[in-house]
């Protein structure tokens, strides 16, 4: 007779994706305690926090790339816009964090929609070119618009203060990032499984079929780009208030490419895949490659590592690393079946 699972395990099994997201969040929330107990280096916590922030941004880009088949090369630019807005609003204008958060997401959405209105009507790759130009404009603004952005000296901000009186420290901000990541994972999951998500899926299968079913491609492309930009803005705000410093040279094309690499390597259209990918792209170079003897000293190693991984994954595992195990399993069962049919 099978033993009955206890209530917690039952709940975990019944509410599958949600409960595992929450479990993931709880495990991450333990990390600051480990740092306090000196079991984990502080620098690891910073690396992990930035990985989580890039995961949030990556989840947005995954909707755009995975479902609309569009590429944005301006992710870093929109993130940078979020950081500067949030820093200006909280540090210079002394607005509350929550309001600054809303504005720092709304403004990128507005700019994103304008970009999308122009570029999404034609072929898909026009968006990539338009965002490339837009992010270059952002960089120029970050450098030259010194009244707000402080130019090349960069801009500072503090840890966030929630509701006006809860002042978060380093660990508190880390837990805030984890909480927001879990919420974003749940929102993304629900979005993909909603009417909108099904429209996205149809669009991916065949644009003509989607059009024939009455799905307005232009509208849904625009929507997916708006979501991407909103997530990037949110990521920017979190980055600003965890790293507490923003600088024009952070928000270059290379960062956009790294975020793209994360979702391609991890797994397109997969929420855990995006997070796995972020750990590979942003974690492995920091935690492993830099510590290698001799070749670890070179600047470009991380980019070569990610670039080679992108090419290999697209060529051989187009669904990403998260599905590699299943692919192997399928291959094995296929082989066994074939062997079986020969012996019979």
């Amino acid at each position, binding site marked *: 007779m099978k033993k009955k699972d206890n209530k917690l395990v039952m709940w975990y099994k019944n509410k599958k994706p949600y409960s595992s997201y929450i479990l993931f969040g709880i495990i991450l929330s333990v990390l600051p305690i480990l740092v306090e107990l000196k079991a984990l280096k502080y620098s690891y916590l910073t690396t992990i926090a930035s990985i989580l922030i890039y995961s949030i941004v990556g989840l947005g880009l995954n909707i755009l790339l995975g479902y609309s088949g569009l590429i944005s090369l301006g992710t870093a630019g929109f993130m940078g816009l979020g950081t500067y807005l949030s820093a200006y609003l909280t540090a210079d204008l002394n607005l509350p964090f929550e309001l600054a958060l809303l504005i720092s997401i709304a403004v990128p959405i507005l700019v994103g929609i304008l970009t999308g209105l122009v570029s999404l009507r*034609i072929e898909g790759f026009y968006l990539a*070119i338009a965002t490339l130009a837009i992010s*270059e404009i952002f960089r120029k603004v970050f450098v030259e618009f010194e009244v707000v952005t402080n130019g090349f000296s960069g801009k500072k901000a503090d840890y966030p203060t929630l509701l006006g009186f809860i002042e978060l420290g380093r660990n508190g901000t880390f837990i805030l990032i984890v909480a927001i990541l879990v919420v974003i994972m749940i929102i993304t999951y629900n979005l993909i499984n909603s009417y909108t998500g099904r429209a996205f899926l149809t669009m991916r299968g065949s644009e003509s079929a989607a059009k024939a079913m009455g799905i307005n491609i232009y509208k849904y492309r625009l929507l997916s780009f708006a979501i991407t930009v909103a997530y990037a803005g949110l990521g920017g705000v979190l980055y600003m208030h965890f790293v507490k410093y923003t600088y024009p040279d952070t928000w270059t094309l290379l960062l956009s490419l790294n975020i793209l690499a994360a979702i391609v390597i991890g797994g397109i259209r997969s929420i855990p895949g995006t997070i796995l990918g972020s750990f590979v792209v942003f974690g492995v170079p920091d935690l492993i490659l830099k510590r290698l003897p001799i070749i670890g000293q070179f*600047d470009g190693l991380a980019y070569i590592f990610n670039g080679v991984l992108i090419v290999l994954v*697209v060529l051989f595992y*187009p669904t990403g690393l998260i599905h590699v195990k299943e692919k192997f399993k399928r291959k094995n069962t296929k082989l066994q079946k074939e062997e079986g049919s020969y012996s019979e």
Partner: protein
Amino acid sequence: MSIFIQIFLNSLETGGIYALAALGIILIFRTSNTTNYAQGAISMFNAFVATYILIGTNLPVYIVAILGMLSAFVVGVLVDRIVISKTQNMDPVSKQIITLGLLMIFLGLAPMLFGTDPIQFPRFIYGSLTILGATISYNAILNIVVVIILVSFLFYMLQRSKWGLSIRATASNEVVARMMGIPTSIVTMTSWAIAAALGTLSALMLAPSTSVSISMMDGVQIIAFLSCVLGGFQTFHGPVIAAYIIGFASNFISYYISSIWSDPILYILILVVILFKPNGLFGKKMVKKV
């Protein structure tokens, strides 16, 4: 008046540099059906190779430029054989992602092999000339003439030679072209190689006025893409003409409006033009079959 002529002559030179880069992008787009985001990085990489040959051997600059283009040719062939030829049956988005991967590889390799410091690159010839009050260097005249001759030669070849015919056939329909006995994989390979060589030449023409560095081609790359957008992706001549238009616009904006904000104004202007002419100035409407 003399200022106007000065800007006009400068624009001819910068427009030519943009035109070479744009021609490289459109060649690859038409034959491989992908926008090659690594074009600028490959050009930058081979400009470094040329600079190192110059430092190492002290050969004349024009021979070094030809050697640099040859090395670009080889890099183009290698990239096509090792990666791009394996992606023939993939959807366009995967191909674009692969070129982004290539971009990261080249951007990582360059600082590893050549260091991060910018290096000076000399002009082909020195001295200058005064026409109607405007000064123009012999080097600029050489660049203008070389670009015009090269572009005309390529267009002549595209229209009249067997090679050009096979490129146009591959561009219009790869499957049918292959059925007609055109070696499409070799056509694609040569267009990658020629595109890389054209990009490297544009990088070396740009190098004396800036310097050879990792980010030297960033701006040119964006403008080359925008000229393809402005000229339309359906023709070979559209992007080249658009590149010259952008060259003129860029110089006039930076002189008459603002030198700091010239690039942002230019980009926004181009995007606004696209809003009204979505297929570009010279493009035809793309027709998709289900």
